[in-house]
């Protein structure tokens, strides 16, 4: 079976500054693979490169065995990818319900969309209460819920998640990790970026550590926990 994500020799940069240098990694299907690293290490940039939002300068990205380097974002999404982006990124002038619907933009069946909506409302009752509120007026944490719910609406084969628990209350942080485990249980691959190292490693199968734009460590979650370089990179 093809890897869910396979990246090799990836370079990326904004304007002049190099952000990713020769990054190679693999995400095995059906796993939760996490990407760790301190602020500014380049995690978000890596995700942007996978999605085609920041086209890489060199290297290749494959999703489920298909070369997607240089492909338009909506085509990458069409391969069964969904993303919960960093910083929530609401459509502030759309209602909560409309935001959620956009998560299933490529799904043609209205009945299916309705079914998924119901599921999301089930997970986040707060969103059901507020389905007609403009997303821009929701509280920080409520917006995080919208963002996660929106990612779930896509019913992807691969879910890419960038710091979903930012701004969530402790209860919902736990809930969030439970959701991610539940997703894996359904056979969906998760590529997870998180700052919450301990909780992340507790649920992840494998992980990579990014530092200064390079992969400095990688392996199974257990290996990472005991890896010296990992400690050096992460805890200084």
């Amino acid at each position, binding site marked *: 079976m093809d890897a869910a994500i396979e990246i090799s020799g990836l370079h990326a940069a904004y304007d002049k500054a190099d952000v990713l240098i020769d990054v190679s990694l693999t995400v095995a299907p059906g796993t939760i693979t996490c990407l760790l690293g301190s602020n500014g290490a380049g995690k978000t940039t890596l995700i942007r490169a996978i*999605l085609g*939002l920041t086209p890489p300068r060199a290297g290749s990205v494959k999703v489920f065995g298909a070369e997607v380097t240089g492909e*338009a*974002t*909506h085509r990458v*999404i*069409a391969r069964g990818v969904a*993303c919960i*982006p960093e910083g929530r*990124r*609401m*459509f*502030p*002038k*759309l209602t909560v319900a*409309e935001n959620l*619907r*956009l*998560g299933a*933009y*490529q799904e043609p069946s209205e009945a299916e969309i309705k079914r998924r909506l119901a599921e999301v409302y089930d997970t986040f009752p707060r969103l059901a209460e507020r389905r007609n509120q*403009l*997303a*821009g*007026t929701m509280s920080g944490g409520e917006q995080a819920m919208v963002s996660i719910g*929106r990612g779930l609406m*896509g019913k992807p084969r691969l879910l890419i998640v960038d710091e979903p628990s930012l701004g969530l209350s402790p209860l919902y942080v736990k809930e969030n990790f439970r959701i991610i485990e539940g997703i894996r249980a359904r056979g969906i691959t998760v590529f997870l970026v998180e700052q919450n190292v301990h909780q992340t490693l507790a649920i992840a199968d494998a992980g990579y550590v990014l530092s200064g734009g390079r992969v400095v460590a990688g392996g199974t979650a257990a290996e990472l926990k005991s890896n010296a370089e990992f400690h050096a990179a992460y805890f200084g």
Partner: protein
Amino acid sequence: MDLFGQYVVNGLMLGTVYALVAVGFTLFFGVLDVIKFSHGDVLMVGAFTGFTAASGAAALGFSHPLAQLAATVVFALAGTAALGAAIARWLILPLKSAPRLNILLATLMLGTALRESVRLFYPDGSNPKAFPALLPTSSWQWGQFTLRADSSILVVTGVLVIVGLHLLINRTRLGLAIRAVAQDEETARTMGINYTLIVLVTFALGSSIAAVAGVMNGLYYNEINFGMGLLLGLIGFSAAIIGGLGNLYGAILGGFLFAALQMIGAVAMPFASAYKDVFAFAVVIALMAWKPTGLIPERASDRV
């Protein structure tokens, strides 16, 4: 007040034209958050395209007004849709990361370029053109009051177009995508929306609405000229704003209101009718002081 009805009918007709121009503006900046100042001139191009099509159809021997009307509408819509998409592709998309006002200025200059191009390159383009009367010209007369069939058709069509557009924007997947793209390009892409396509489609759509207004203007006044878009654009813009950008129906409200103001300024005020625009625009300013976000305001979506 035998003529009151006549004024109302005139006002409705004028208001419909304004509303149709306004709705284009609302679409562009209510939905796409862009002021497209070339809108009035695209309208003019639409009118000229329609005029050319009608003349062409006549020259090819299609003498029936309906055939000519069909040619007019089809070519005007298609032509301006293509123009709109081209504007989006080569002007708006390259400028999307530049400061907002730049788009405004660029489209403004584009408007000048369109206007000048028609003047210079359209055969005898600097002179007014007689737009053929393609709608039934029968009329009903009650005393001083004349109701023309063509005017009634135009008013009804105009309102239907706006209502249809409103439904498209608010009830369909395409409409949702258009609104999403306006607010956050990258996230829209991340949702799997083909950003470029949606922008092109929106501009094609907005521009063909301008063509509808242009053709309608031609059919109503039976005269078009290369400068017709200038003031019409300004009035449409004002109408869109006083109506409020949150809602396409604001454009209808704004359009009719502006027409009413002009009518009142022309006939019901103690000063000379030449002051009617002064009057109408002064009221617009006062309205903005009173309702700074228009008569049908947007729901506030920003918070701290």
